[in-house]
Structures are given as C-alpha cells and as structure tokens.
C-alpha cells in the first residue's frame, strides 16, 4: 500500500490519459457509422481524424506532467537538468 501511495498523482493522471488515448480510438463500434457527416466526410472518417488532435492534447499534457515530476525527482537526487545542461554537468 505504501508503495502505491508513493506514486504521485501526476503519474496517475498521465497514465489514465495515455490509456484513454490508446483504448478509445480502438473501440470501433463507437464510430463505425456514416452519419453525421462533416464537410462530406462520413462520421467514421472525420471522427478518427479528430482523434489526432485529441491525442496531441492528451499526450502533451502527459508530457508536461511527467517532465515536471521527473525534474523534481532529479533535483531531489541532486542531478542536473539535461534540457539545460549546467556547467557542473560537463566532465
């Protein structure tokens, strides 16, 4: 239990977002239909293309959450930030 509690909420949220972005686009029964059409595109086609944008958002949020968590962890361990290499990191 203590192990589970140690997982920070950021990881949970990111995990859920990522899982949703994998599972929902694969639920074919939810979108295998023609209507409503959008600019002549059947629902089946435009819905899947719309998921491209949704996925950009969910993965983007996950990235922000994880990166912040990871920076905090690294700072706590006294490690540098690889995106902004400080002088101290060079050999």
């Amino acid at each position, binding site marked *: 239990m203590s192990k589970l509690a140690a997982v920070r909420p950021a990881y949970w949220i990111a995990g859920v977002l990522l899982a949703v972005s*994998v599972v929902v686009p694969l639920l074919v029964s939810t979108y295998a239909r023609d209507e409503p059409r959008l600019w002549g595109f059947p629902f089946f086609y435009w819905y899947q293309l719309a*998921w491209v944008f949704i996925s950009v958002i969910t*993965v983007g949020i996950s990235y922000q959450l994880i990166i912040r968590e990871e920076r905090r962890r*690294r700072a706590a361990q006294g490690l540098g930030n690889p995106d902004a290499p400080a002088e101290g990191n060079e050999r």
Partner: protein
Amino acid sequence: MNHSVDWVQLIIVIVIFAAVTVMGFMAARWRRTGELDSLDEWGLGGRGFGTFITWFLLGGDLYTAYTFVAVPAAMYATGAISGFFAVPYTIVVYPIIFVFMARLWSVAHRNGYVTPADFVGGRYGSKGLSLAVAVTGILATMPYIALQLVGMQAVFETMGLGGDNLLAKDLPLLIAFAVLAAYTYSSGLRAPAMIAFVKDGLIYLVIAVAILYLPGQLGGWGGIFDAAQTKMETTSQATGKPTGVFIPGESGYSAYWTLALGSAMALFMYPHSVTAVLSTKNRNIVRRNAAMLPAYSLLLGLLALLGFMAIKANVDVKGLDGLANPQLAIPRLFDQEFPSWFAGIAFAAIAVGALVPAAIMSIAAANLFTRNIYRDFLKKDATPAQEAKVSKLASLLVKFGALVFVLGMDKTISLNLQLLGGIWILQTFPAIVGGLFTRWFHRWALLAGWAVAMVFGTIEAYNVINPATKKHFGGSLANIPFTDTQVYIALTAFGINLVIVVVLTLIFRALKVPEGKDSTHLSDYTADAGDPGVKDLPDLLDEGGAAPAKA
C-alpha cells in the same frame, strides 16, 4: 494506353534527386563528431539529435512509401479495413511509446547499447535471445524495405520508364534498387536525417495541394466518398463478395482494431525506429516527440483518402504487365490530375520519401547484423573500421533480401509486406518491452515463446491465399484458431507468445533453471544525459572504439 516517357516529369525528378544527393554528401560532414568509418558515426549519426531534428528523423522513418503509396492503394482497392486502420494505428502508437521508450533510451545510453538486441543480450545475459531478436529484426525489416522499393517502382512506372518485355518490365524496380544501394553505401545515417527536411517539405507541399485542389476538381468530398462507397459495395468478380469495406460492419471490428494495435505495438520494435530514438540527445526528447508526431497522422489520414479520390477520378491502374496494380493509383492520379511539372514534383516527393526510410532501415538492420551477429559470433575482436565495413556490406545484403520479397511475393496489396514484417517483429515485444520493466520473464521462456510464435505466425500468413491471384501470403488477417473472429495474425501470435512465456517462466523458476546475469542496474532505466555513466559518442570514441568496447 500511353506508356511513353514523360520528359518534363522525368527531368524534374532527376533534378530534385540530384539536389538531394548533393545534400546527402554534404551532410556527411554536417555536425560531424568523428570519422564516418566507425559504426556509431555511420550507423547512428553520432547520437546527438535534438527535438527538432528527431521530429524529422522519426517522421522520415515512420511515414514512408507505406503512407503515400501502400495505404492509399489499399484504400483504393479494398477500402477502410485494409487501409484506414493506419489512422488509429498512428494515433495509438505515440501513447504506447511514451510509456516505454524513455526507459530504453536511458538503459541504452548507460550501457552503450545501440540495438534492441544489445539490450536483450545485456538484460538477460543470453546471447541466444539476443541473436533471436537480431535475426527477427533483420528479417522483418526486409519486407518493409521491399514496400519502399514497390513505392519507388510505381512512380518510375507511371513516368513511363520500363516496357512490357521481360527485362524492361523490372527496369523501374532495378532503378529504385540501384539508387537506394548507392545512396546508403556512401552516406550513412546523417544524410537521411538531413534529407528528411527536404522530403517532408516536399511532401507537405504535395499534400496541401492535393487536399485543397483535388476535391474541387473531382466534385467535392461528398462525391468522393459516395464514389468509394459505390465501389466498395459492388460485388467483385474474383471473389463473389463486395469489393471492399466502406465503413466496417460488426464482423470487421476485430480486424480493424487488431490491425491498428498490432501495427502500433510492432512499430517501435523495428531496429530503425530504435536507432532513431537512441540517436536523440536526452531521455525525454522521444516523449516530447510523441506529443508532436501525430501531425503526421493527420497527413497520413488525408493521404489515405487520396485512394478514394483515385476511385472518383477513375484512374487507370493497369501496370506494364497488363494486370491491375493498385499501387499505381496515387501516382496515376497525380499524373492525370496535375500538370506535368507538378506531377514531377509529387513523384520526386514520393521517391525521396521512399528512399530516405529505406536507407535508414537498411542501415539499422546492418547495425544489428554487425553488432549482434558478426561481433558476437563471428569475429569477436573486430576493429571499428572492420565493423563499419561489414555494416555497409550487410546493408547491401539486406536490400537484396528486400528485392527477393518484392519479386517473390504477391504485391497487389503492398501493405501486406509491412504487415508481414509486423507479424515477425511483434514477437520480440515481450523480450524488449517486458525487459524494460521487469526481470521476471525467464530467458529460455522468452526464447521458446518467440520461436513458437514466429513459426505459427509465418504458417498462418502463408495460409492466407489472395482470392484474386491465388498466391500465398495474400493477407495478414486470419481467424483466431477455433473461432470465427478475424484478427491480425501478429496479435494472435503475440497472444500465444505471451502465454508460453508466462507458463514456461513459472516452470523454469520452479525448477531453478539459471536465469542469466543481468548487466543492467535499476537506476539505468531512469538515467538521463549528464548523469554519471551516461555516455554519448565522444566518450565512447575516447575509450578507443565506437561503443563496442563495452561488451
């Protein structure tokens, strides 16, 4: 039919190709960190690409002739299930790699791993398992390269190269092969990374024009979809069933989502995708890219719909041999609807777009051969220069393998080539991704699961017969044994693989069979650039050799 050479198109294609080749040679000197005759330099581009370049490099890897020839061709020929699944595939792939790729980056950089087989060998202390992963990677890459060759061939054929006699018939293919071979041999990974910019620029241009211009020419999207629907619902003479699928019915759901999921899980097992990820500067660049790469998926979706446009435009897809070849749908659509000069630019985009990934793939497969077969089994004390030489030769051999796939297999639906590769490569997933998170799986269990799944997948795929041409390997869908549910064979085999791995792991652990030495450490999996022990190329070179020194 008109098969004379279109000189305007040909000249434009040659000019663009020449420009790209010059860039390639210049790239050999670009951001160079060492000599090109060491394996890390030729094969990994020196490992130091940032977010921006990686975006192009990964895009160049993943969006290939698959995207602009094979997928639209499949849409043209049989509609949504065999083609449009590529959209959910490229959507779900990014969340999946987000989860595990950063760990692979870290462990690879701390231990000097360059290939997925390096990692498996180090993690499980098993040369045998590492060999299995290497062989699978090389084998599975061949049909994927074959797909690129088929794409280039379609373009050259549309421009009027080749003829209908036995020798000239294969001329477009031979040209494609020669260009690819010469190009990779001389430049290594740096050139493709550089050229990916040009390639993507060209492709964005062509897509933008095609998407904005063509629907107007063809009477709007509504009409395009209606034409596709009509074609898909018409009964095919060859099979007596509807030609294809416009919107999947209930029986098609399982095929659709398993194709998408199976392809997504398989994609980052390919050696070339791993290479691209490992050549990034730090652990999180691949994650940042996972959030940005879906822009390509949108492109892919719109490109797929070009297949429907080709239906509406009634393009003639008869090949030089007189048989219908859906691969010609898109090139012929451009040829028919665009002015010659723009068709030329579009063809150059497709050809370069097939060339770049084919080069990256063959280099990655060659790396696998050199590191995990040549050095581990054939010549343990090879010098870096010898390794680079062997790699170059191996990349040539891999391309010959690809040529065999092109010539030997049914290529009426070239997408199948990639799906066949997927069946094989997915069987390395338990060892690689499993290994990134847990050491619980037993190495011999992984090997056994892999072996059974490889054999099963190959037999199942062999037994799929194309109803139109009567050839084996005619598709990648089969019923799950003892059911009527049609799924992508790769996932069935993967399921069998996992069951065997789990059961045998329990048995081997109960019998206390030695589990091998794990040369990685828990902290390796979260290490980042700048941490103690995390190497980049200059360090490796200082140690007197490219990576190999580690063993």
